[in-house]
């Protein structure tokens, strides 16, 4: 057994050991990306970015009342400050529907009144409020999305920009990371010629011909 193979197998053993420690080590409190209520997780991000001051300025002429977004139909006695505090932090938060009544494009099947209530001036991009985009995956981001996204993106690039910044595209398309091999592992150099002849349409997605000739010319010179 070669030394690289032995080292690699040792890595797998270590990985299994790390997995076995899940019950005895403190768990990650920064990345709880996927709790049960996925939508509320993303809403929580958005909630933290909400600014009453910004909205009061933007909606100045319309003078929205508190009840425009918040509901106040829960009666709380003055003797229950704890309950009032809890409700003000949780139950009175209006939820995503109130936000999306202004922010966002037309909704299929929405009523005429609902469409009228949308404000053309309100930013409609997801990243206006949401920083955790994972729970908001559109329905077409499925199955082989990595393979088909080019077709969809070319039909309407602006649609991609609702959620993704330019750097999101560049991060993969121009990535030449020496450590975390995003596309090809380090053994690919041994058999890239087989892949290139089996599916020559894909090489040009990332590489120019210079990339081939740079190494092959050196090999010829040697």
């Amino acid at each position: 057994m070669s030394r690289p193979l032995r080292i690699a197998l040792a890595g797998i053993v270590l990985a299994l050991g790390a997995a076995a420690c899940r019950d005895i080590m403190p768990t990650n409190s920064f990345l709880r990306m996927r709790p049960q209520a996925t939508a509320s997780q993303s809403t929580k991000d958005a909630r933290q970015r909400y600014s009453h001051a910004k909205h009061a300025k933007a909606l100045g002429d319309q003078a929205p009342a508190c009840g425009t977004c918040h509901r106040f139909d829960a009666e709380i006695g003055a003797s229950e400050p704890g309950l009032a505090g809890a409700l003000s932090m949780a139950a009175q938060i209006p939820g995503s529907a109130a936000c999306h009544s202004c922010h966002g494009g037309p909704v299929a099947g929405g009523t005429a009144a609902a469409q009228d209530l949308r404000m053309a001036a309100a930013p409609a991009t997801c990243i206006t409020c949401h920083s955790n985009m994972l729970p908001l995956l559109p329905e077409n981001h499925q199955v082989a999305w990595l393979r088909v996204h080019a077709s969809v993106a070319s039909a309407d690039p602006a649609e991609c920009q609702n959620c993704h910044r330019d750097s999101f595209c560049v991060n993969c398309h121009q990535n030449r990371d020496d450590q975390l091999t995003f596309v090809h592992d380090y053994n690919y150099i041994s058999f890239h010629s087989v892949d290139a002849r089996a599916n020559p349409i894909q090489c040009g997605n990332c590489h120019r011909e210079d990339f081939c000739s740079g190494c092959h010319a050196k090999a010829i010179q040697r």
Partner: protein
Amino acid sequence: MGRPGRRCWAAAVVLGAVVAFAHQAAAVDLRFQPSLLGQVRRSPWSAQTQVPMELYGDLGLSDLPLGSTFDTFFRLEEDWSDLSSETDFFTGVLRIPKAAPGLDLQLGRQIVAESPVGLWDADSGQIRLAVPNTPLALSVFGGAPRTWEPTYGPATYSENEQIFGGSIRLAKFRGGSASMGFLQQIRAGRELMQQVTLSGTRSFASLPGMPNLYGNFAFDADHQNVDLARAGFQSAIGSPRLLANFESGYYKPQDMGNTVVTNLDRREDPVFQMFSVSDLLQFRGGARYTISPTVSSYADLSYQRYAQVRGSMVNGYVWSSGLLWLPGGDGLEMVRGEYYGIDGIGGSVNGGRVTYENRVYQDIVFRANLDMAWYEKSTNQDGLGIASLIGVGYMFLPGVIGEVDFIANSNQFLPQDFRGALQVTWVTDYAIDRTGVQKTATGNQGRPWPWAPTQFGPASWGESPATWSANPGMPAGSGWATASFAAADASRTAAKAAAEGKKAGATASDTAAGAIARPASGTEVR
């Protein structure tokens, strides 16, 4: 001005922009995610030691006036043992999405993806004009593509390129659109292609399986040649746990088949045209099946047929199949095992890889990867290629992760290739306004491998079985405002009826906007 001087100048411009905008806007959001990567390795071409250091990352500003954003991405590389090997690249784009009603402007070094046959990083400008209350949108772009790929040698074809084009979005659906466009590409002063394009995609969220259809077509008017035709669909079939995708495509980057284009600057797709003198037919299919809430299986197969030389058609097959296990269902731990294979005129490959990534524990990241492939080439070469990595990271400051990796490989050129590597990643987000600078987010994600959901969708996530809704972010019928909309609708209907009946008392204040102030119960809000 030298390279360091330009970098300092660029940094000063960015910081100046932050300060200037922060005084005008309520709060500017500053996002900064740099990663410092270092590696010690031996060159595959010589016995020399290489010590490349890379500064990867992006710096972005948002919440600027007019909804503007400034987004950058950079990779600055320096090999400390060979100072002539720099392959820096950087992009930076200013986007003003609301320069005027319906007008979206972008300027800078950016992604241009408005052609179905290509994508460029280009020094360019893009203007989009959306016609209000219609699906129509006009887009115009133009610029000079840029390439930063390390070439390890002199460039062999010109980077003197220009692209110009535009598109019109003809229709817009929920989850889709259709557009037609024009693209002209010029290289080394000569026209390379003039394409008329048609692209469309549509999701049918209300149909069983939520199918999604897409298609592209490009006709090169200059060569009187169909460059590309592609159609595909993806859908859940029968069970929401079974997802499938099929696609067929025809690709002919130039009017080939009669002559080999020897001048690289005249090739539309130089890499493809190095292997083929003809058009290419491709059929591709894939399926994902969710075995349990935390275990998914997948399989993909693609078939290609083209002429390597004139009159000699060859076939190529590429396939893969594997299992993805997300222990705990929270996505913080991922185990992936895959078998893959290639078969074609160049030989055959049979390989397997196992990937493990763990972010479960506080402050700790752990990952391991093993990829082994047996290859047999048509050149009578065969062997076993191995790639492996073990990495451990620790968050020693909020948002700052340091990681040490050990990489061991064995391939045709280096039977024993050992590398030591480090990564330091800082993920941070600040809100800047007149009152000062406030940190708004930290994380310990570091630099993840391609994250499982980007390939497998939410079907593999969560502890509950996969379910499907038209919009997972906003479940239908939820939220109190749904009832408010209904109340507003009723109010509007009543007002309309009142107007039609010319009844007295129908006032302008009885509008939908007024109605939303009422809660679902219909009682007045005090």
